[in-house]
């Protein structure tokens, strides 16, 4: 077992507060932590599960077995839990402060939804349980599909996709299936405006399409002439992020959809930003054939440090036959069931296992029901009001490349600061950390220089919005007075700027040079 302890570098004192750079480590607050591996000592454990009787693995050929248990860390419960609690203190989160990360909709995650998703009836139900055992969840999913139809103005919804990007793939595979069903195999291109989200072109590639990028016009909308120029018999579809990643509603939306339809293509709307237009605009009404929702944005399911989410897809008449399987069906007697494998041969098949990320969908259901129609409309109104309020306040301090009414977010730019002081958007962002705020999304969308994509959401108080604007103003002033302080920011975070270049050049992705299994098997 000595190998195991040997891998701890000498001088590293696991269990002690980590970091040679810090002589002293505060008792409360954010302190860097050793890794679990450094905390590990052979023989530490908490008794969770009884020892198996002899003969447990009888009948399994020796060469199929692992001779040594995997060299996972051996840590008793106190040290393990402390480790994660202390790591959590290194995180910024919606639960700790303002998080205006544009394009990500870091709004409040209602606490009752966490309770709901953990109800044993939901959480302990096996996805392959017979329909008769799953009537509660099936009814919930059925209702949620209907409600998303109403919100989108579309005909039907699949809840299966695991995230927005997967919703896109699902939608585009249905587009392909539709063209194929009509014997039209020439359509190999997907048109993507340059203000669309990065997942749109990536999806097109994944589905085997060529991406045709159309540039934006001076107002930040799709350049209609440029669009018309690329439409044609190879056009499978357009993918329109609307509102766009510039936070702008595409006011030529009807013309665009018509033009694409006229060229024989279909119109996909990336509805990840529907949080801006709930009850105000329904893609189905504008003729879109397919769209996806980002449940974790629009309906406020938590983002979990990167996920999970869910990306339901809504379709119009044309794509109905191609929806992934299984769908939730209602029987004559009012009971619910899942479609059986192979029951609907026109389906594109499945895009993941089981019916979907049910735990996320329970939260979305709760969110929708808590709000109702008027509440949802108010969500969008407040989100848009807050974004415009901030845009207005920052107008004199930062450049606002598209300074017109925005939706839930807007792009500012530090180009002026860069020109005048050498301070870049990155510096501004890092300095915001010292002011207690999470920075906005930066350098995105790619089409705006020194971009700051700011999405305040509807759940932040006016005091918070003012405080954030004040911080950005103070930073702009500081850029003129003391640019160095900004280049080296943040100064108050647990770590300073990171060496990302070395991280990429010599990737260190796990805590040990790979050695297979190292630990003798005790039992």
């Amino acid at each position, binding site marked *: 077992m000595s190998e195991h302890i040997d891998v701890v570098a000498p001088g590293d004192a696991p269990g002690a507060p980590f970091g040679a*750079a810090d002589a002293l480590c505060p008792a409360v607050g954010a302190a*860097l932590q050793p*890794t679990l591996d450094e905390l590990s000592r052979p023989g530490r*454990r908490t008794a*969770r*599960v009884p020892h198996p009787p002899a003969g447990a693995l009888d*009948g*399994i050929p020796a060469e*199929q077995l*692992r001779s040594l248990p*995997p060299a996972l860390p051996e840590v008793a419960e106190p040290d393990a*839990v402390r480790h994660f*609690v202390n790591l*959590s203190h290194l995180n*910024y989160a*919606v639960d700790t402060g303002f998080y205006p990360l544009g394009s990500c909709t870091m709004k409040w995650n209602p606490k009752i939804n*966490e309770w709901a998703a953990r109800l*044993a009836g939901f959480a*302990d139900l*096996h*996805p392959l*349980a017979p329909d008769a055992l*799953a*009537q509660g969840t099936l009814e919930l999913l059925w209702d949620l599909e209907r409600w998303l139809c109403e919100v989108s103005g579309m005909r039907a919804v699949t809840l299966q996709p695991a*995230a927005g990007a*997967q919703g896109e*793939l699902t939608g585009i595979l249905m587009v392909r299936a539709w063209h194929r069903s009509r014997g039209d195999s020439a359509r190999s291109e997907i048109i993507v405006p340059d203000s669309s989200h*990065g*997942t749109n072109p*990536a999806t097109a590639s994944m589905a*085997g399409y060529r991406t045709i990028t159309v540039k934006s016009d001076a107002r930040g909308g799709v350049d209609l002439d440029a669009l018309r120029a690329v439409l044609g018999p190879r056009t499978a579809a357009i993918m329109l992020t609307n509102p766009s990643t510039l936070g702008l509603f595409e006011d030529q*939306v009807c013309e665009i959809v018509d033009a694409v339809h006229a060229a024989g293509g279909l119109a996909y709307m990336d509805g990840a930003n529907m949080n801006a237009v709930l009850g*105000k605009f329904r893609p189905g009404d504008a003729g879109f054939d397919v769209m996806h929702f980002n449940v*974790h944005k629009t309906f*406020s399911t938590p*983002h979990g*440090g*990167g*996920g*999970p989410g869910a990306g339901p897809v809504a379709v119009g008449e044309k794509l109905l036959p191609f929806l992934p399987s299984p769908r939730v069906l209602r029987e004559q007697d009012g009971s619910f069931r899942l479609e059986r*494998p192979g029951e609907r041969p026109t389906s594109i098949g499945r895009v993941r*296992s089981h*019916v979907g*990320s049910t735990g996320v969908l329970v939260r979305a259901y709760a969110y929708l029901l808590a709000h109702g129609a008027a*509440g949802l409309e108010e*969500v969008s109104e*407040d989100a848009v009001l807050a974004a415009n*309020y901030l845009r*207005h306040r920052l107008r004199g301090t930062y450049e606002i490349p598209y300074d017109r009414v925005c939706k839930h977010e807007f792009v500012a730019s530090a180009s002026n600061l860069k020109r005048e002081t050498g301070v870049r958007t990155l510096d501004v962002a890092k300095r915001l950390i010292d002011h207690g705020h999470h920075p906005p999304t930066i350098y995105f969308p790619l089409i705006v220089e020194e971009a700051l994509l700011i999405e305040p959401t*509807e759940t932040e108080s006016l005091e918070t919005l003012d405080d954030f604007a004040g911080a950005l103003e103070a930073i702009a002033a500081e850029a003129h007075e003391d640019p160095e302080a900004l280049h080296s920011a943040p100064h108050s975070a*647990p770590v300073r700027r*990171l060496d990302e270049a*070395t991280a*990429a050049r010599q*990737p*260190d*992705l*796990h805590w040990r040079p*790979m050695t297979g299994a190292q630990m003798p098997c005790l*039992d």
Partner: protein
Amino acid sequence: MPYGPHTPDDRARMRAALGIASIDELFEDIPLAVRAPGLDLPGPLTELELSFRLRALAGRNRIDLASFLGAGVYRHYVPAAVDQIASRGEFYTAYTPYQPEISQGTLQTIYEYQSMLAELTALDAVSASHYDGATATAEAALMCLRATGRARILVSAGVHPEYLATTRTYLDGSRFALETVPLRADGTTDLAALERLLADASAPVAGVLVAQPNVFGILEPMAEATRLAHAAGALLVAVVEPVSLAVLAPPGAYGADIAAGEGQPLGLPLGYGGPYLGILAATSALMRQLPGRLVGRTTDADGRRAFVMTLRAREQDIRRERAASNICTNQALCALAATVYLATIGPHGLRDAAALGAARARELERALAAAGAPRVHAGPYLNEFAVHVSDAPRVHAALLERGILAGLPLATWFPDDPVLRDALLVCATEVTQTAEIEAFAAALRDVRTEVVA
């Protein structure tokens, strides 16, 4: 609005600052022709009402049966710490750690996740998470295609049918071919058939996907399959179940190039399908082909160790149509739960869980055989296997009424297979109790008498 802080007064102040009289002025960019007239939805409900509704729905599900259902999704004992950590707001209400200075909690736990999955799989590069086992498998197939430049994928018929279906869907949009490799009567992949399929030089194979254990619970000759794949210049993808890796030889040990699998057994609830955790790991040679997020260790400006997202040039927000995948939101919170699960159960606990499940499965095998339901396949198994029961779907339904969830009637997936349509796929884990096994066997005896009668 249920959760927002804005009072009418706050709104009026913002409108005044903007110089607008009505909120409608901010929506004038929506063409009138398509301005929505309002929505027709139930609600709003107060939280009290909402809690009643949700509790009623949850109560309509039935989770009180003695369950032998697995088929890729397994009940395990999960230390209470897992949910306590995963429900800390600092973790679950954060997002992708774009600002590493204030995201070291998320970043370090991902790094630890990668490290622990690397130990389990004996592979070097582990993605920070995919959606689920099915999509991780599909992405593994795409990796093989990208890495080899070839256009043909072979999938063992022992791979979970939903993973196979998903992979098919993912490959559908392309010029790629997917073929299945049949199983032998003992439940293992037919290596001779595999060899024949690999031999077709006109359509060289990019990757071979074999599941260990396979969907029937049978342990596959992975080393041999890998040898065959490699001999033909193809990559070998092992589709694995992570808890089993505490006792089974890890993919890296038999030379697999990629491991994909469903991480749900690592501390996640059954949850009727998700959110789950797609495991995807590869040799370091394939690291740059891995889709999804990676976190690496580095230092900060003061030389302190710190963690950061790395090799991001594979991702969609930077590379758009040239990205390795369109994945953006992933399953980070599920990966966190898996990390806490592994940290709190430990290597010996995980081994105990896996082996105790196997022991219970052997009890179950004996009990069911004695009740007239012998195993279908002769191959070795870990904790899941198919048993033969004539009229299996009807027997399954009759057992439900006796409080037994008798696994999965394989007719669900293989309605036309003359053997499988009369089979039940049953599993045991460390939470299966001997009393439940006895009740199952007793009920089966009863029911078989009735159904026959």
